[in-house]
């Protein structure tokens, strides 16, 4: 475990270009998932009464899909600033566990670069790069390339959706809504590297659905992450004995 980390560290201190190129190439597969959601956000922002600069500013500064949708709906419903901020905090708490997972591969990174990588962390780029970090195929530049491309795409599609989103045929936009689940389902299949991870995946799926049925939707992901990872550890410990 220690040697694996050191190797990743050494690799990531080396040349910049290979990581950037690999990251940019792999990010192509995320675009199908991000473009429709960005367009949908642009459309929704307009419907909820935001101006075009406000919609763009939110995508530029907040850059968090789900909480942006929730935010504009709450603003339109007359919620207060504090209420919106607290909801956003809880919706995005899952990102804390994602940046924590990424950080073990980013040892020795300068603070400036870490600040940028953290700002642009999303479910999608976390998912793509953590799988590659675990197999030693990614470094900090890989993550940077993925983040910058998704950030640019999210902002461009927010504006495009705001301006022209309603021109999209309904059948196409409905089917595109499946793109994001497809991304995470594929990443899940690839993350199931052994029997313990399969057990973690099945348990986490069941728990997450059960929580939704019990009307726990806020904080769902972070609760499931903590429970699922702990189960993985316990099973690993128990099998190792």
């Amino acid at each position, binding site marked *: 475990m220690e040697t694996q980390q050191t190797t990743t560290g050494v690799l990531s201190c080396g040349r910049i270009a290979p990581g950037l190129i690999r990251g940019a190439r792999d990010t192509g*597969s*995320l675009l*199908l998932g991000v473009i429709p959601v960005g367009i949908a956000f642009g459309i929704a922002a307009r419907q909820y009464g935001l*101006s075009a600069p*406000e919609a763009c*500013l*939110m995508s530029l*500064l907040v850059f968090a899909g789900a909480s*942006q949708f929730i*935010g504009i709906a709450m603003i339109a419903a007359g919620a207060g*600033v504090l209420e919106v*901020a*607290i909801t*956003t905090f809880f919706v*995005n708490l899952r990102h*804390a*566990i*994602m*940046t*924590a*997972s990424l*950080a*073990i591969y980013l040892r020795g990174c300068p*603070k400036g670069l*870490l*600040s940028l990588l*953290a*700002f642009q*962390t999303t*479910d999608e780029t*976390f998912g*793509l790069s953590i799988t590659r970090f675990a197999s030693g195929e990614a470094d900090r530049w890989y993550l940077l390339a993925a983040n910058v491309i998704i950030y640019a795409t999210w902002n461009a599609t927010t504006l495009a959706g705001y301006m022209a989103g309603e021109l999209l045929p309904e*059948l*196409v936009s*409905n*089917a*595109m809504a*499946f793109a994001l*689940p*497809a991304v995470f*389902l*594929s*990443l899940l*299949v690839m*993350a199931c590297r052994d029997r*313990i991870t399969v057990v*973690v*995946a099945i348990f986490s*799926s069941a728990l*997450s*659905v059960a929580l939704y049925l019990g*009307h726990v*939707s806020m904080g769902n992901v972070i609760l*499931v*992450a903590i*429970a*699922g*990872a702990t*189960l*993985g550890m316990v099973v690993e410990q128990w099998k190792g004995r």
Partner: protein
Amino acid sequence: MEGKIAFILAMMLATYPVRLAPMLAISARNLPEPVVRWLRYVPPAVFSALVFPGLLLRDGNPAVSPSNPFLWAGLATFVAAMATRNLSKSVCVGIVVALAGQRVLG
């Protein structure tokens, strides 16, 4: 406009530190080995939580039925991901089946 800018800044303040603090804190030190191993089980758990409620539920109610096109699309994506281990290919398969499913079932 001014009123909404306050909302946007508040949302940024509720988002960025959450992402930044763990990254700065954890990348700066050597974590105990069990914590590192624990963190490696986070991805499958997170992916599961992001996928299955959307596939199996509609508006908070169970939607496990042959008339749910996303269920068929999910099945196709799963098979494609197992077979190809390739993100782009399996996502494309999923979208095509979702599109076809909505045509037929919708």
